[in-house]
Structures are given as structure tokens and as C-alpha cells.
């Protein structure tokens, strides 16, 4: 009953959730949600560049995100512009620039909606291989640099003073972010990648008492959302990418219900 493409979508989606979970935790701990948004928006520019020079799209998106990430770091060091202005500017210019470049290339026909909101149902076996290999590489790296990265997240000063070289781990983190954006673009599209990163992580918060636990629960929530989203999209004939994000949102709402409830209880008892 389940078609082949549906199984592929499930495997690809869960592979993505595996990395977006822990990475998403770091993004919300470090308040990088908007930064991630800017990177993922710039992925559209990467797509345009890939089509223009006829190179692999995932690779081009990875490189573009990487370049944008490091230019942001450099620009922020200058501190002439507030960083939200800078991020907003770059995010939307990258999208606009990508669209303009795409429009110039009258000879290529692109499925713009697919790039913007994901095209999970069309993923190929190669896509799955890229997602899983890239994803496992990211997970392995993350496990290696977990302590210094986490220490630098809590306090960059303590980490640096106590010899953990946070600058170095920050660079690795940026590379991982660019990689995750490149591999998850196919699943939910450039507009929704940040949502897939931060919403499962935020939903996991209420159930976690340690950072490691939160990363694990974020993976589980992400995977559940992928399954629900895909089945939902099949059932109600809705677009798959947005359906996955709606599922993460539902999970988040459920996750904060106990909190709201306990606050009311406390108020009543006073």
C-alpha cells in the first residue's frame, strides 16, 4: 500500500530529523534562530548558482551557506550594524538575488515551490545517501566537539579561559550548519528549514533535564513530526514540507500544555 516514493520520503525525513534535532538545540541555546534563517534563505541563491554553472545543487547550497555564514561573522565583528539589521538584510537580499538570477535563466525551468517549501516526495536514492552520509558525518563531528561546543554555548569566556578553544569549535559548528541546510533543503525547502531545526528542539525542552537528553528528545520529536506530516499529507492531500512543520508545531503546543496547567494549579493553590 505504501508506495516506494513514500518509503523513500520517510527514510530521508527521519535521516534529516536525526541531525536537525541536536543542531537545532544548539541553535536555540545560542540564539541563532535568525542566523539560521539567513543561512537557509541564502540557499536559494545557491540553487540559482548551481543551475547557472550546472553544478550539483546540494554542493552549491553548502558552499553558498558557508560563504554567507563566514561573511556574517566578519561583518558582525565590525559591529557597525546591529546584527538583526544585518541578518534581515542578508536573508532577504539572498532570496531576492536568487529569484532574480533564476528569472534571467529563461532556458531552465525550475520548480520554485519545491525549493522554497520542499519536495520530499521526489527524493531519490542518491538524495537519501547524501542525507544519511552527511547526517552521520555531522553527528559524529558533533559528538567529538560536544564538550567544548556546549561549554562555549554556556559561557564563551569560561570555555576560552579554561583552554577549550571555542573559536575553533564555532567554525566547525558553522560548517555543520551549512551542511545541514544543504541536505535538508530537499525535505522542507529553504523557507522552512529553520522551523525544522528549532521547533522540535523547543518542544523537547519541557521534557529534558540535561542538554544531551534534550538533543535526543528533539531527534525523536523531529522523527515523529516527519511521520505524522507525511501521513497527514497523504491523507489530506496537503503539501508534505509544510505538513511536517505543522506537526512539529502541534508537538510544541502539546509540550507546553503541562506547564500551562501546572501554573494554573499553583495559582489556584495560592
Amino acid at each position, binding site marked *: 500500500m505504501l508506495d516506494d516514493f513514500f518509503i523513500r520520503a520517510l527514510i530521508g525525513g527521519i535521516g534529516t530529523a536525526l541531525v536537525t534535532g541536536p543542531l537545532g538545540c544548539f541553535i536555540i541555546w545560542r540564539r541563532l534562530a535568525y542566523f539560521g534563517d539567513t543561512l537557509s534563505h541564502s540557499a536559494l541563491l545557491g540553487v540559482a548558482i548551481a543551475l547557472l554553472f550546472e553544478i550539483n545543487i546540494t554542493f552549491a547550497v553548502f558552499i553558498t551557506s558557508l560563504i554567507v555564514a563566514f561573511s556574517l561573522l566578519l561583518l558582525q565583528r565590525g559591529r557597525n550594524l546591529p546584527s538583526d539589521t544585518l541578518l534581515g538584510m542578508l536573508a532577504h537580499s539572498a532570496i531576492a538575488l536568487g529569484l532574480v538570477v533564476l528569472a534571467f535563466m529563461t532556458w531552465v525551468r525550475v520548480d520554485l515551490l519545491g525549493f522554497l517549501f520542499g519536495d520530499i516526495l521526489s527524493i531519490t536514492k542518491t538524495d537519501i545517501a547524501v542525507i544519511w552520509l552527511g547526517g552521520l558525518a555531522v553527528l559524529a563531528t558533533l559528538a567529538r566537539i560536544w564538550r567544548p561546543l*556546549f561549554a562555549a*554555548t*554556556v*559561557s564563551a569566556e*569560561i570555555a576560552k579561559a*579554561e583552554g577549550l578553544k571555542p573559536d575553533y569549535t564555532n567554525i566547525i559548528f558553522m560548517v555543520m550548519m551549512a551542511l545541514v541546510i544543504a541536505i535538508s533543503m530537499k525535505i522542507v525547502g529553504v523557507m522552512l528549514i529553520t522551523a525544522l531545526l528549532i521547533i522540535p528542539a523547543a518542544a523537547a525542552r519541557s521534557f529534558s533535564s540535561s*542538554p544531551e*537528553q534534550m538533543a535526543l528528545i528533539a531527534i525523536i520529536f523531529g522523527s515523529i513530526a516527519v511521520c505524522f506530516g507525511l501521513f497527514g499529507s497523504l491523507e489530506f492531500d496537503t503539501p508534505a514540507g509544510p505538513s511536517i512543520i505543522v506537526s512539529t508545531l502541534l508537538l510544541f503546543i502539546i509540550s507546553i500544555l503541562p506547564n500551562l496547567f501546572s501554573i494554573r494549579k499553583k495559582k489556584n493553590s495560592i
Partner: protein
Amino acid sequence: MLHGKDKLVTLDNAGVFRSRRWLVKGVTMSVGAGEIITLIGPNGSGKSTTAMIALGLLNTDEGTTYRKENLRVGYVPQKLSIDWTLPLTVNRFISLTKNISNKDIDFALSLTDTSHLQKKELRTLSGGELQRVLVARAIAVSPELLVLDEPVQGVDFNGEAKLYGLIEETKKRLNCGILLISHDLHMVMSATDQVICLNGHICCSGTPEVVTSSSEFKNLFGNKAASTIAIYQHNHNHEHSLDGSIKSKAIIEDERNHDLNHSKDKSHA
């Protein structure tokens, strides 16, 4: 004194220039094993900046710094803010930069009277509790150099005396060098080997007795500094234990006498 290989950190004529002004300039100092160096000075005088140079968090624009290779550092920053999004218990926080055995965690927490907070989340702690946990963490890494940036902020008078006692004890136990930043003159005076009085540059330095009697010190802090002890005595007719209960006068007197005797010992030595 400079570049002695027995020193943990040495700053030679160090200066940091940011936003078109010198944050500090011409700072020469060093911390050796078993020494307590205290930095004092008014707000914006470059105390934290100097500590950050010593820690390697800031690069100097002038002068040189030397740090012992692979120096094990314990750092208590001035403040730390933890978001709701970060689930971080006290226990987990202690082994933030290094694996620390449960036994050592328990020991560090018991030293700072924070054992009961072990399972609590960091962001739910009060200012004073957080400060003590920060100190516990820095001690738990068994540092060769312990740097504390105003560790008594938000800690009440009694807790302050205890915390300084603990810092002194840590020095003896680990034979580590200690760089302490403080705005509180009296309490520091009794335990420290060398006081460095900063105001963008080093105004004066030396043993606590030498510094308090120097005219630069009096210019910087006024007469208030000289009467700091008196101020404490007048303002505190009772004191609280760490749990908030009121301590008996006898205990307070006892602790005061202990402090005074201690500073007397220092001046004889």
C-alpha cells in the same frame, strides 16, 4: 620578578586599546603558585580587562603577556546568564569544561554550601547561590590558576567572609595562584599577598598595609576606604547564616576576632 619561569602568568607593560581609548595601559604584574593577587579599583578602571588579559581572553595592543604552557585555569566570570531553553543542572554545570568525578563534584559543592542545589537547574538559582556554584565549578577543575571576577557579588556579608575563607583554603590545598578582582576592600585586605590598585593604569601596589597607607590609594577611594571596617561594624548588629536564620552575637564576635587576628598575623609576617 618578570618572566620568572615559576610564575603562572606575567603581564609586562600590557595595554589594551579599544574604541579609541586605552582600557588599561602599562600594567605589569604576575601571579605565582600559592600567591593571592587582588585587583581593586573603581568602576571602569580596567580590573576585568586586566583579568581577561591574564586569561588570554583579550589580546594586548601593547606589552607582552606570558602564560605557563597548558596552564590549568579555573575562571569565575562576573556574571552568567542562562536562558530557559538551556536545561542545565548544577551537577552538569560543574563538569562543563572537564570530566569531574561525582566524588569531586560532591566535595566542591559541599565546600561552597551548595550540595542541596545539586539537582536544581542553574537558571532557578538566586544570585548568591549562582555565585557560589560558579566558585564551586572553578575549584572543582583543580586549577593551577584561579581567577575570580568579583565572586562575592550578591553574597551577603557572612557568606562573603566564608567565601574568602574558602578561597584561602583552596590556595593552601591546591597551592594554586589566585587572581581576585574585588570592590570590597576590608575583606580582601586580610587574605591577600599583593594588592594592585588600578585606575586605567596601576596607581599603587604592594602588601595590603603599604597600599592602604599610600596617598594614591586615599585619593582614589577617599577616607571611606580607611574606615571600611568601622562601616561594617556599625551597619550590622546581627547577621544571617546562609540559610537566612539569625546568627548569635557570640558567633559573629568570634568570626570578627578571627579575622582581626588573622590580619595581625599577616602584618607581623
